């Protein structure tokens, strides 16, 4: 039945973009554009709804959530709004396995607290068992290109944060290969809780990491349209763009069965940009592996 619904039904997803006006400092629009375009090419309609300060968050209206990063001045009223107005909705969404991506400031907001160099702690939501400490102006900010390992492949981006995040029981998103990561000490980067992902990687994150973007879309589709069995190979999603069908896949390295719902796209340029950054960081083998990803034959529809 699920397969039927996939074949006939028009797939729609709704992305809740939290605080688009306040937390938009580091090209977060790129993440939204990427999700939109990758859905559009597969004939999935992605609606993006902005959720600002004062807006209520009804979890059943959304299939995916995104929070970006902003300036300190703008982060304080946002932190207050998260805890006062959106906390129940956010918790419900996360506990219900809704995919959520929180970048930089948004990531800090979803941990227990942010302790500035001066002044009182800023309370966070505590989705991730982690906390952030700003050690003052003397401790240099973590700035630069960064690459992490993620489920047998890599994620690349740029980081720029003054606060250092320490993980409690939270699982890291990946291990730092080059760069600073959470705190420049323990080689962890980001945090994961259920389908909620927090990370310091921007740059923007998703355009150059198409496998991660597809992973999030995939999670949202699975959650909304049901978990389908892995043996079905006959499902063909309609492909909006002809270029996608002659393309090569990017999904070989994505974790678990995540590649199964989505048709492959031509991600040559994405992986080249990904590899170029790895290359600049001196990760030559990883760069070669990333370039191979985009030359592998389409395997997304094989079990």
């Amino acid at each position, binding site marked *: 039945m699920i397969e039927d619904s996939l074949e006939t039904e028009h797939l729609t997803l709704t992305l809740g973009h939290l605080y688009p*006006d306040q937390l*938009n*400092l*580091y*090209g*977060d*629009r*790129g993440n939204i*554009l*990427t999700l939109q*375009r990758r859905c559009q090419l597969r004939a999935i309609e992605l609606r993006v709804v902005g959720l600002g300060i004062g807006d209520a968050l009804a979890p059943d209206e959304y299939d995916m959530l995104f929070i970006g990063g902003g*300036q*300190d*001045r*703008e982060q304080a*009223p946002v932190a207050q709004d998260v805890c006062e107005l959106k906390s129940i909705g956010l918790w419900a969404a996360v506990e219900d396995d809704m995919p959520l991506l929180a970048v930089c400031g948004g990531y800090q907001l979803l941990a227990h607290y942010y302790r500035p160099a001066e002044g009182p702690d800023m309370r966070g939501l505590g989705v991730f068992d982690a906390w952030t400490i700003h050690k003052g102006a003397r401790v240099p*900010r973590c*700035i*630069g*290109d960064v690459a992490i390992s993620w489920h047998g492949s890599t994620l690349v981006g*740029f980081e*720029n944060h003054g606060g250092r995040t320490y993980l409690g029981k939270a699982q890291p998103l990946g291990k730092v290969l080059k760069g600073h990561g959470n705190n420049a000490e323990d080689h962890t980067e980001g945090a994961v809780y259920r389908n909620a992902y927090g990370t310091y990687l*921007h*740059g*923007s994150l998703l*355009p*150059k990491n198409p496998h991660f973007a597809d992973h999030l879309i995939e999670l949202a589709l699975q959650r909304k349209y049901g978990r389908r069995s892995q043996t079905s190979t006959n499902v063909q999603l309609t492909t909006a763009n002809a270029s996608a069908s002659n393309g*090569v896949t990017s999904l070989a390295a994505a974790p678990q069965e995540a590649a199964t719902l989505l048709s492959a796209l031509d991600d*040559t*340029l*994405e992986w*080249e*940009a990904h*590899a*170029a950054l790895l*290359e600049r960081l001196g990760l*030559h*083998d990883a*760069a*070669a592996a990333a*370039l191979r990803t*985009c*030359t592998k034959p389409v395997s997304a529809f094989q079990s």
Partner: protein
Amino acid sequence: MLFCSYRGTSADFGGKALRKKGSSQALSAGSRTRLRRLQHIRAVIAAAKQQGPQDALNLRAGLAVIGARTAGALSRRLHLGGGTSIAGVVAQCLYPDIVKHLASQVEYGSITVTGTNGKTTTCSLIAAILGNSGLRVWRNREGSNLMRGIASSLAMHALPNGRLRKSGHAISVFEVDEAVLPQITRIVHPRVAVFTNLFRDQLDRYGEVDSIATHWREAIQQLPSTTTLVLNADDPTTAHLGNDFTGKILYYGIDDPSLDLEAQNGRHQVMDMRTCPACASDYVYELRFYSHLGHYVCPKCGLRRPKPDVRVLHAQSESFDRLRIQVESDEHRQEVVIALPGLYNIYNALAAITTAEALHIGWESILTGIEQAKPVFGRGEYIQAEGRTICLLLAKNPTGFNEVLRTLFSNATAKHVLFLLNDNIADGRDISWIWDVDFERVAGYTQTLVVSGTRALDLALRLKYAGVAQQEMTIVPSLPARPQRLDARGRKAPQQNEHATQRSYGLKSALNTALRQTPPGETLFVVPTYTGLLEVHRELEQRGLTSHYWEGAPQ
């Protein structure tokens, strides 16, 4: 150090300036041995110390000047760069107070210009106006806007006796980096301090936008009330910098509702400053020209745009780089022609006009100054190459890039374009801002498109997501990725894919490709980031297509 400095001095300056003044015979003679020179200068220092502290300071300044000019000359000779920064570094090493020492000698004082965008053009317009009014104008060169750049510009005008050359009837116009302003105002009290605007730029270097505003407030606190502030009324942060300032403030702004973004069918625009600094609520805009520039009011505390003293009533674009504006001040109303492209140059012209008003310069000098102004280095500059015209349009941050794109693609004719995105330190290492630039304007409006620079692939990806088809752009990265040359074990890698194997690399071939794709007689628009602009200039220079930009440095 000293040895080489004397040799350099006599070789590169020909001892011209030095021979005129008797105080430095030691330097003009080219045939004496190094040792005798050194002994002589030691004797002079000892003598000066006996004469009094002021002479000793002048002497020290003189040494700094010689060192600086030598270093500058050497650096130019060896093509290490424009030769403008190193001179300042040397001068400051030899005499840390060199800027204070020399700046105080300028008869008509100094003007500082700072802000995220428009510093260089505004400075050049101010210089043109002041020059027309009969003053002798001294500037630091484009890009040398840190303390050392200012030190070097002064040292280049100084004599080896530590005095400024022709300081009478002179005025200095300093372009000052946003973050450096407090250091400058600590030692130089400008007659006029101009603030153009504050946008997001190089977050990895400056930190957050707010921290720049904090630097500026700090700098203004150090200014005496004899300084006049010239502030952009349309930029909320800039406009309210002077709230606690006791001296005179002149505001400038645009009052033409037809320039409103919505009236112009504006698309996505980033706003880098959207909340009131007093109460943190969002501004409401009656008119918005670009980014956060416009007529704003805070709905909560009532903080609003100040009424500008110099305002543009009407602006009209006559051609790509010819704007006609109606300017009004309290006493005058005047039509001014600006031979530069883009809305942002209206603000630059306004800033220059307002500065001239603050100095009581006559309108005749203002009009001719602005009309005759030539585009400065890479800001709408034209260069003829192989029968094509190259137009250089520097774009270094989201707002700057958006405005360049708007200017380029405002009419429906498709253009030949070369984008150059670098992430060197001077550009900012973080390029995520490209995702906030309205590249959607580009799709469908290019005849040919080349994408190059150290982050060419990132920009190509951005353009792809903006709807530019991959086959419509030629990607020419700075360097090939290593796996495309050799794999990890040093073997020649197999052919990766068709795109990669067709690729060429480096600026030279990017420029060649772009020029080849542009038919003779047409214009190629080159839009580089800062270091990209330097690279293009160097490349064109090597082809003999443009003059050395540093030649004009000291006048």
